[in-house]
C-alpha cells in the first residue's frame, strides 16, 4: 500500500480512499481502470485538489435535438492534459416518482452509460434526476435514443420546469395525506413540453411531500411546494398511547410539552387533543406512530416561492392555498399553476423566480392577478408598516369612486 501510494499520480485523492465512509474516489478509480473519461476525470480532479480551484470551464449550450434542457455542457480548461474530458457533459435522466426502481431497469441504464459515458453517476442529483456524469457531445443523441427506447426521458435544466420530485408517500409511509407519487407522475407527464423547452423566465420546481414532515425539503427547494395535511382530528388509539407510556415514553414532557400549540393534555390515562388548536405539526404523531395518526379528511397546503439565495437572499415557500383536495385529474391545482405561469410569463423578468416576482409586485397584487382570496394563513403576521397602497379613493366632488 505505502509502496503503491508513492508511485501514485493522485496522492491527494488517494487519501480519500481511507476512512470508513464509502469513498467517491474509489468509485472513480474503479471506473478509471476501464474508462478513459473516468481516468482523466481523476487526473483533473487531482489537479484541482492541488491547485484548489476547479478546472472546468463555463458550460456551453449542448443538448439533444428539439430539447432545450436535460444536458449540462461542461469543458475542461486543460484538454491537452486530459483530452478525454475535453467535453464532459452530464445528462439528467428523469427519475421515476419516489426513486423506486427494479434492478432490471437500473441495469439497462448502466449498460447504456457504460457504452456512451464515463460510467460515473450521481444517484441522484439534488433536484431529483439521475445524473449521468460526463460524456462528449457526439454521444448525446445516441444516449438519448437508447434511453427513450427503454422508456426513459431527460429531466430539466435551464429556464424550464425542472424535474418534479416527491417523497415516497403512500407507497411506504403511513403519514401521507395525498398520493405524492401519482401527482408527481401526472404533473411530469402533463407538462412535458415546458419541461423540455424553455418557455419560462427562469426555472420552476415542484416538490411534493405527503405530510408536514416534508421529507423532500419542498419548503426550501421548490417554487411550488405541495405539502399534505388533514382537516379533521388526529386519530388517537388510547390503548396504544398507554403502551408507549408503559414502555418508557414520558407523554407529558416528550409529547404534550413539545406540542407547539400546547393543545394536548395527558392525565396518565388518556391523551386529550384540542384539535381546533392543533396546527398539524406532526410532532406527536412522529413520536408515537403506533398510537396517533393524521385525520381522514386529507389534502394539501400549496406553498409558493422557495429558492436559493441568488440574488435577493434565499426564500422558503409560503402558504398560497391553505387547503386543497388533491385528487385526479388535479384540475384545481393545474388551473392554479397555469394562472401563475401566465402571470409569471407576462410580468417576470429574465431570471426572475416566482418568489422574487411576488416580492417585487407584492403578495396582494399577485393574489388578485391569480384570483385567489387573501387569507390570514398566508402570513406570520399582518403588516407592521403603514405604507398601504389603498386602491380606491373618492373624487373631490364626492361624485363617485376614483381608483389608482
Amino acid at each position, binding site marked *: 500500500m505505502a509502496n503503491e501510494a508513492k508511485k501514485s499520480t493522485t496522492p491527494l485523492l488517494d487519501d480519500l480512499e481511507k476512512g470508513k465512509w464509502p469513498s467517491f474516489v474509489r468509485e472513480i478509480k474503479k471506473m478509471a481502470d476501464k474508462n478513459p473519461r473516468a481516468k482523466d476525470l481523476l487526473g483533473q480532479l487531482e489537479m*484541482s485538489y492541488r491547485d484548489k480551484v476547479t478546472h472546468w470551464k463555463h458550460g456551453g449550450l449542448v443538448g439533444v435535438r428539439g430539447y432545450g434542457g436535460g444536458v449540462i455542457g461542461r469543458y475542461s480548461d486543460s484538454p491537452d492534459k486530459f483530452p478525454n474530458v475535453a467535453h464532459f457533459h452530464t445528462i439528467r435522466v428523469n427519475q421515476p416518482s419516489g*426513486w423506486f426502481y427494479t434492478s432490471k431497469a437500473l441495469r439497462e441504464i448502466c449498460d447504456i452509460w457504460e457504452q456512451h459515458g464515463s460510467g460515473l453517476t450521481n444517484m441522484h442529483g439534488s433536484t431529483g434526476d439521475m445524473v449521468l456524469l460526463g460524456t462528449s457531445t457526439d454521444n448525446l443523441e445516441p444516449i438519448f*435514443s437508447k434511453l427513450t*427506447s427503454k422508456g426513459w426521458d431527460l429531466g430539466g435544466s435551464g429556464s424550464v420546469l425542472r424535474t418534479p420530485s416527491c417523497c415516497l408517500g403512500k407507497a411506504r409511509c403511513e403519514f401521507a395525506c395525498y398520493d405524492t407519487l401519482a401527482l408527481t407522475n401526472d404533473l411530469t407527464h402533463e407538462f412535458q413540453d415546458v419541461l423540455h423547452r424553455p418557455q419560462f423566465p427562469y426555472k420552476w420546481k415542484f416538490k411534493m411531500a405527503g405530510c408536514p414532515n416534508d421529507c423532500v425539503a419542498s419548503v426550501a427547494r421548490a417554487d411550488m411546494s405541495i405539502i399534505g395535511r388533514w382537516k379533521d382530528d388526529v386519530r388517537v388509539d388510547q390503548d396504544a398511547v398507554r403502551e408507549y407510556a408503559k414502555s418508557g415514553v414520558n407523554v407529558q414532557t416528550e409529547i404534550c410539552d413539545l406540542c407547539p400549540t400546547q393543545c394536548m393534555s395527558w392525565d396518565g390515562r388518556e391523551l386529550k387533543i384540542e384539535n381546533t388548536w392543533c396546527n398539524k405539526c*406532526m*410532532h406527536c404523531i412522529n413520536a408515537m406512530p403506533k398510537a396517533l395518526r393524521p385525520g381522514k379528511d386529507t389534502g394539501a397546503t400549496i406553498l409558493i416561492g422557495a429558492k436559493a439565495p441568488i440574488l435577493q*437572499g434565499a426564500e422558503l415557500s409560503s402558504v398560497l392555498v391553505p387547503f386543497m383536495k388533491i385528487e385526479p385529474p388535479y384540475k384545481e391545482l393545474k388551473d392554479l399553476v397555469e394562472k401563475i405561469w401566465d402571470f409569471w410569463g407576462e410580468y417576470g423578468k429574465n431570471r426572475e423566480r416566482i418568489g422574487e416576482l411576488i416580492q417585487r409586485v407584492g403578495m396582494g397584487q399577485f393574489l388578485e392577478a391569480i384570483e385567489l382570496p387573501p387569507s390570514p394563513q398566508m402570513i406570520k403576521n399582518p403588516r407592521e408598516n403603514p405604507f398601504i397602497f389603498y386602491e380606491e379613493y373618492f373624487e373631490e366632488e364626492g361624485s363617485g369612486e376614483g381608483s389608482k
Partner: protein
Amino acid sequence: MESVQAEQRRTDIGPPNYENFLHPVIKKNYGTWKYHEILKPGVLVHVSETGEKIYTVRMGSPRLINIETIRMICDLADKYSDGYLRFTSRHNVEFLMTDQSKIDPLISEIESKGYPVGGTGKSITNIVHTQGWVHCHTPATDASGIVKSVMDELYDYFRTMKLPAKLRIALACCLNMCGAVHCSDIAILGVHRRPPKILSNLNKLCEVPTTVASCPTGAIAPAVVDGVQTVEVNEEKCMFCGNCYTMCPAMPLANSLNDGVSIWVGGKVSNARHAPMFSKLAIPYIPNNPPRWPEVVDAVKNIVEIYAKNAKKYERLGEWIERIGWSRFFDMTGIEFTKYHIDDYRFAATTYNTSTHFTL
C-alpha cells in the same frame, strides 16, 4: 447506425410510471400503511392495516457511484428484495423486503462491501451535496472530498441513533446553493472571497449591459480599457456572490488563496414542533485545505458533539440554540463572534435584537 434510431426518435415520453417499480407488497398495501417502527439503525418495518409488512434496509452511499456499484446494488436487490429497491431524498439506497430473516444477512453483505447501514431516526444521515471540483465551473470548494472527510469522522452517528434528534448536514460548493443548504442543521458552504478578475476577452464573451446588470450590489460598471469595451468592479461593493460569473465567463472569482468554506447552523425543513428555519452563520471562513479539510471536520464535529451533549430529546440543533440563545451557543462552542455574523443585507434590521432579552 444512429440514423436508424433517429427515425424512431421518441420525445416527451416522460419518466417511466413508478407503479412498474413498486414491490408487490407495496402495491397491494399502497395507502393503507398503519404504522412503522425502527427495528434498529437502518432498519424499518411498515405495517399495513391488513397486517402485511414491508421491511426496509437503508444503506449509505457516496452518491457519486459508478455503474459497477449500481450493478452490485442490483445484485443485492435481486438476492434479498425481489429486485426492488429505491433511493432516498438524501441519496441513500433502500432495499424493500418482505422476509425479515434476510435482513441481517443483507446487512452483513452490505457492510462487507464497505457500505454502512443506518441513517434512520435520531442519526446523522447522508450529507446532501453538490458537484464541486468534480463537475462544476463555479465552485469555491470541492463537495465530495469534504463530505467524505466529515462522514468518516461522523460515521458512528450514521450507524447509531443516539442524538437528541435528527441532524441534517448539507454542503454546497458555491452561493448558488444547489441543495437545502440554507435550511440544514449544519451547512457547509463554499465561499469566494476575492472579487472577480476581468479577463481581457470580456468583450468577446459577454454583453456589457447584461454583465453590469447582473450585480445585485451595483459593483460593476462599464469601462473602456485600451480602447476596448469592458467592465470594472468596485471591490468595496463586492460580496462575492458570483452572479457576474454565472452571466459572464470572463469574470472568474475562483482563487486558490482565498476560496474556502463557511459553516452555518440551525436550519430545518420539517414542520415538526418548530416551523422551518433558515440556517444561520456560525463560522464565516475556513480556508480550503484538501484533501481532508481538517479544520472543517473539526468545526462540524465540535458543533455536533456539544449539541449532542446538551440538547433535549427531540430538540433539533436550531431549536436548541433558540432555547439557549445565540450568545450561549458561541460561548459553548468557542466560536468567535465577528462583525460578519451581523446581517447587513436586505432584511438586516429584522435580525437586530430589539429587546433586553439576552444573557451576558
